[in-house]
């Protein structure tokens, strides 16, 4: 069982690293497309959207641990033992 857990943890770490790398790549590609000296606004808008997506994704990537910590905190806070049912 612990093998599977560490395997998944490894994947998560790899995915995170790849995600950061891709963030920089997307950031660069996005700016490169946006800054192209061409008059095609559609292509330029694609570059703009790349930058936008990459920034948002970077934000959620940075917030990842926080998000799950928050879920754990909320679930534990809201799990209060319910009152005993009324007895006749």
């Amino acid at each position, binding site marked *: *069982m*612990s093998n*599977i*857990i560490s395997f*998944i*943890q490894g*994947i*998560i770490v790899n*995915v*995170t690293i*790849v*995600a950061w790398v*891709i*963030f920089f*790549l*997307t950031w660069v*590609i*996005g700016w490169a497309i946006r800054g192209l000296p061409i008059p095609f606004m559609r292509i330029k808008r*694609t570059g703009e959207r*790349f930058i936008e*997506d*990459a920034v*948002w*994704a*970077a934000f*959620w*990537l940075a917030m*990842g641990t926080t*998000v*799950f910590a928050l*879920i*754990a905190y*909320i*679930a*534990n806070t809201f*799990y209060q*033992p*319910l009152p*005993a*049912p009324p007895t006749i």
Partner: protein
Amino acid sequence: MIINDVIVIAYYLSVLGYYLGVLIYMLPIPFYGLKKWAPQLMIDSIFSAILIFSYTAILYIIRYISRIIGTDWNAFYLWSAKEIGAIAGTMASLRLIGSALASMNLKFISSSIISPLISSLTYLLIFFITLTTLLTALRIYAPTLIAIGLLLHSIPFRLSRSAGAMIISTVIIFSIAAPLMPAFIETITPSIPQQIQYSLNLLSSKITIKDIVGRPVPYAVIKIYNKGGELLARYLAGPNGEIYVSADKGIPNGTVYWNIVYGPYNYTVLMNASQYTWINRTYCSAHISLPDVVIVSEYVFIKLPTNSRVSISYHNSSSLTVNITGYEKSTFYIVYPSSIAVNITVGSNTTLLATYSYRWYNISFIIRKYDLHGNTCLSISTSKWIYTGPPNVAEYPFVNHIVKEKISSPSMLITPITQFIYAVFIGPMVYVAVLLSSSYALARLLGGAEPRIARLIVTGV
């Protein structure tokens, strides 16, 4: 321990799903068909994580709601045991009727009606026990199953999200509501099915017939009549005055007349449940003492006057001396088969009034009627003993009587079975279908069950 590991794996899978979503979000490609997975993956993962952290809460909610609506697994098991017992009892009764039919040379009825009924009851029993086992498994493995459901639910890309949601919802709904099945079936059943056994009212028994001093009366015949004078059963005692009536023959339970016939002698007694010695609910022993008979040897006996007093001394198994004290002007009889030579010595106060002959089945009796004034002493010894054997009485088991009645109205046989089918097949099926559709609705709430999966589970196509 396994549950814990499964929960941890599920958690990490949901984290993985989240980061995969983020990764796809970042990809520098303009294919929005792929990119639309990104927010989906992130939201699904967050929802899975919420469910995983609510694992204890889910188990608590199951217990809490069960307590509120009065779920009682013990009552459910008692009900299922009662139903299984009733079906098994009915099967035994049907087998009994089948064997009685076979003994009455009506085997074709047994094979055309009884056998299909028994096999349908067998299938019913298999179905019912399987269902009970399945529900028990759901109850016992609820925590494990919910953990597995969470694991399936949190696998990224919604690969098994529907299955996970369905498992979680099924376990929740069935754990809470399955034990209420008896109440549901009771509500929709017009009347509670009765065992045929009860309507048969049949007992197995050991009957002992003895004379006034407790000596066995060999080869006596018992005829059992109901209050209307209808013959219900006829049995022949063995040489030791005992009759073993097995469950496949039976005696009627209830108030009936027992008529003991021994040659020309006839004695009737009203029997009811209080006169039996009960060994269990369907087995009893009965002792009949003939109040005015002294057995000398096989078929040789003295019929005493009413309210007389006797003292007997036995010389050997076929010779005795009897002192009889009767009222003024009473009579007694000495009865013996014509094939046996009997030496009778009577004392004073006694005169031979008449001699009769009487035929009982294959045995010819000689009856000597004596007049008695006050008391007398008589000695009887038998000689030239010839084996007569038992009377050629055709036994008429009580089961045969019932079967005759039942066969005249086959609906009486079939109705209890249809009630069983209603109570332990259709009723549970309807209830399980209701619970499955509730589970499907809850599964959609938990993350969407594919209608296809639900349809597959419910209809199998």
